[in-house]
Each structure stands twice: as structure tokens, then as C-alpha cells.
């Protein structure tokens, strides 16, 4: 039995960045970004009296003529091709509703999944009535954004072997803006576990599958117990992710791995203590800077 009780402290975020001074690329709602009419208005901005003005607090990003403001924390704003991890919230006729931390529930159409029995199977009326056999309320899936509806809701698909129903593992929810966009969001980490970094901030940690035994279109999940050592790695990774997210460090395979290595001198359950968290994140950032430099 262990109970750690303490008085609260004013928390400070750890930072190693040198440019701690005023950063001009940070804006707050109502700030005029430019009055030059040659720019295009992106997310997080609006035009007021021909001036491009910020509507959220965050960092200004410029791609060619397009100006966006990226808020520090927001709901997931999905784009076609994004990898997401989501949870089924409702089974409807011909489609599932999926919670993906977007502003509207995402949709997975029955026609956008691979049903057991091969690619070219016709979706019959019976499939509609047995949709619960494939995916049930509460189930987790990994998927890709196929298209975005006019109202902003996302349409997902799982028509690739790497997507589908998720089995045993742990879900960690962090802010979508902390996920770094990369070529691949599926990683087998060398520490012995695998990770899916959903663009929507849902991160899935699971034991690295032994051999590729993907069958039945990904609707089969093994319920065999997972070894204690694998569990420990996954729990450590989970706590590391939470530490990174608490200190607003960008999450990608390298940062997770460095954080994991930095945490090894502590017990898994101690990682979430504020002072340990600070220490680990500090070490992680040092490593990241060394690697960059």
C-alpha cells in the first residue's frame, strides 16, 4: 500500500529552448496579423476591415500565401489521409459512429470496411443487421480519413490490413496538436512495444505482434494474456506519454523513445509524480536538442 500525499506547488513547465524572449509569432484573438491583402485566410483567422485578424490564441504559420493560426489545444481538425484511432459510439444502419475527438462524430460506412471473406464481397442486407458482430459500441479502431463531409464530419475507412479493430493494449488521449505529422504513424518501438500515433491525439500502445497473423479482416482479437514484461513496457510508455503531454512536448517516435530511456531509473508508477515528470522531460529535451545539433 502506498499513498503519496502532498501540498500543491505552483507548477512550472520545463523548457530548454533558448528563445525564451518575446516571440512575435504568437497571437491572441483580435490581434491583427497583417493588413496586406495579398495573403489568404486560413484556419484560426478572419478578415475584419481588410485586416487579417487572429481568432484563436496560438502560433502563426505561413505556407506561401496562406496564413493559419494553430491553437495550442483544440479538437481534432482532420484532413484526408490522417491516421486516427477512434472508439465506436453508435451502430446505425449501414454505418458506425466513431468518437475521434473531432467536433462532430466521425462516420465509418459499412462499405468502407473490409468484411471477413474477401474484398469483393457484396454488402447484403444481412450484413447491415449483423454489424454488431464486427464492431460493437466501445470497440476501438484505427482508420484513415477518407473524406471530409461538408459540415466538417469525417468519413473514415479501414480498407487496409494495417487498419481495423484494435485488440489488447492501452489508449492514451493527448492533445492532437502535440502529435507530430510524420510519414508513418505506426511504429514498432525498439523497447518492445508498438505504438499508433493517431493524428487525433489518440495514441494506442500495444504489444508488438509476434508474427503477422492478420486474418478475418482484422475483426479477430486475441484475448491471450500478455506477458508481464510487455505490460511493464507499455505502462512505462503510457506514463511517459502523459509526462510529455503535461509538459507540452511534441510527441513522435524519437521523443517517446528518449523519454522512455530517461525514465528507466524510476519505477513505472513514480513517473507521474510531478518532480519525476519534470526531470524526465528535461532529460528528454536535452537528448532531442543534442540529436538535432
Amino acid at each position, binding site marked *: 500500500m502506498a499513498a503519496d500525499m502532498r501540498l500543491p506547488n505552483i507548477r512550472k*513547465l*520545463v*523548457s530548454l*529552448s533558448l*528563445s*525564451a524572449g*518575446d*516571440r512575435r509569432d*504568437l497571437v*491572441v*484573438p*483580435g490581434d491583427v496579423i497583417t493588413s496586406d491583402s495579398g495573403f489568404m485566410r486560413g484556419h*484560426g483567422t*478572419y478578415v*475584419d476591415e481588410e485586416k487579417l485578424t487572429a*481568432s*484563436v*490564441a*496560438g*502560433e502563426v504559420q505561413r505556407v506561401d500565401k496562406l496564413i493559419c493560426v494553430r*491553437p*495550442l*489545444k*483544440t*479538437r481534432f481538425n482532420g484532413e484526408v489521409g490522417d491516421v486516427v484511432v477512434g472508439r465506436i459510439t453508435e451502430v446505425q444502419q449501414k454505418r458506425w459512429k466513431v468518437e475521434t475527438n473531432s*467536433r*462532430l*462524430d466521425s462516420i465509418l460506412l459499412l462499405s468502407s470496411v473490409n468484411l471477413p471473406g474477401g474484398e469483393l464481397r457484396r454488402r447484403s442486407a444481412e450484413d447491415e443487421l449483423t454489424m454488431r458482430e464486427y464492431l460493437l459500441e466501445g470497440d476501438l479502431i484505427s482508420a484513415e480519413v477518407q473524406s471530409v463531409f461538408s*459540415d*466538417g*464530419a469525417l468519413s473514415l475507412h479501414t480498407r487496409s490490413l494495417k487498419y481495423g479493430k484494435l485488440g489488447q493494449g492501452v489508449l492514451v488521449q493527448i492533445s492532437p*496538436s*502535440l502529435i507530430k505529422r510524420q510519414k508513418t504513424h505506426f511504429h514498432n518501438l525498439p523497447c518492445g512495444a508498438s505504438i499508433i500515433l493517431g493524428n487525433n491525439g489518440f495514441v494506442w500502445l500495444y504489444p508488438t505482434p509476434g508474427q503477422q497473423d492478420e486474418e478475418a479482416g482484422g475483426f479477430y482479437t486475441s484475448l491471450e494474456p500478455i506477458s508481464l514484461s510487455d505490460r511493464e513496457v507499455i505502462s512505462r510508455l503510457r506514463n511517459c506519454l502523459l509526462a510529455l503531454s503535461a*509538459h*507540452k*512536448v*511534441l510527441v513522435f517516435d524519437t521523443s517517446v523513445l528518449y523519454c522512455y530511456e530517461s525514465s528507466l531509473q524510476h519505477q513505472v508508477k513514480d513517473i507521474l509524480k510531478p518532480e519525476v515528470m519534470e526531470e524526465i522531460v528535461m532529460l528528454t*529535451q536535452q537528448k532531442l536538442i543534442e540529436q538535432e545539433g
Partner: protein
Amino acid sequence: MSSFRCFVLCGNMAGLELLSDQGYRLDGRKASELRKVQARMGVFAQADGSAYLEQGNTKALAVVYGPHEMRGSRSRTLHDRAVINCQYSMATFSMSERKRRPHGDRKSTEMSLHLKQTFEAAVMTQLYPRSQIDIYVKILQSDGGNYSVCVNAATLAVIDAGIPMLDYVCASTVGFVDETPLADLCYAEESGGVSSLALALLPRGGQIALLQMDARLHQDNLEALMDAAMTACKGVSKVLDQVVRQHLQEASLATGD
């Protein structure tokens, strides 16, 4: 159940002057001086946005959930913009006399409606069709100007949630005593028979999001009072601006590339 102490306190107050001859108010402020504002964004991890704000002895917590899929009856869905849903409540221990219910009384329902109207004027709801944005505000400790403190706290929470707004919404409660407008009233002044006015302002453009007065005031004095309110709101907006920039600075350091 009678609260003896409350009774004692009120008794003391009746005799006091709200504005002394030297121009000082009950708590030692000048007429146009605001109370000290302290705030923090991102208090809670589970909500989309949250903020805590103290203005003098009035303390409020604001939490924002959303934008998310409509909950409950889908008939309230708007197809061209998001629905803003507000609930104002007071902790049962927030006032000197205990409240029996945290919300649901007429005053809180009215306050919820005012908050909703205020934020509908500032949040760019048209970007989120068919969604819902919940703003919940809780007064933990009440010492006057509850509406203003709620608006200011909620503004920070909305910004923390990354929801687009035209501008900050800043609010202040002002009163008129002895031909002098008083900024940012505290409870003793509010209940001391001052005609008070609450104003919510988008400071940069000077647009009014909500204006409310339910006391008697001579028409000639209205302008002076409005000016005082505008100034007070702009004063608040400076403080909020600092809080947001500080928060941005701290939080974006680590993500910055």
C-alpha cells in the same frame, strides 16, 4: 435557518459611506480602480478548455466542452452554426449565507441566458455547423460582479479550448454614487443601493456584447457611466491579454520548433 453572522455584517455596512470624502471606496480603491485580477488557464485536463479567475474576492471556474456532437435532443441542432450552451451555478458555500441549491433558481437561469447571449456575440459559431459548445461557470466565492467575473473566466476557457472568437469578451460591473461612477463593484457596493450596470465588451472594435441595467439612473448620467464601464472593460482586457500571452509563451516553448 438563520445566519447570525451575515446579519451582523449587514448591520455594519448600512452605516458606511460608499465613497469617502477623500474619494476612497470601502475597500480602499479609487473610483475607477479595478480589483486585482489573477487567472490561470488550463486548470483541468479532462475538459477541452478551462480557466480559473479571481477578481478581488470573487472567484470563478469556467470549463468548456466542445465543440462536439449535439447531446440529448437532436432537434436543437442548428444547421448553419454551433449551439452555445451555458450553465451558471454557484457553489453552495460561495456566499456568506449558505445557498440551498447550486443552480436551477431563477437568478442562475437568467445568468445562464445572459452568458449564452454574450458568447453568441463573440464566438465564431458559424464555423461549427451542427455542433454544440458547452460553457459551464461555477462561482466558488462571491463578492460582487459575478456576471463580469464569469464572462472573463469563460473567455479564458474558450481561448484555452482553441475555439475561434472575434475578440476577447471582457465584462465589468460599474455603479453610480455621488455623481461618481465606480468601476468593478464589490458585494458591499452592489448591495448598498448603488444603481449598477453590467457591460460585456469586445474591446478592440468597441462592440457591446451585452448591456444590462435594472436600476434607476438619470439619463444625463448614463453616458458617464457607460464611459466608465468601457474603460473598466478595457482595463480588464489588458489583464486578460497578459494572462493569455503568458500562457502561450510558457506552453508553446516546448512545442516550438
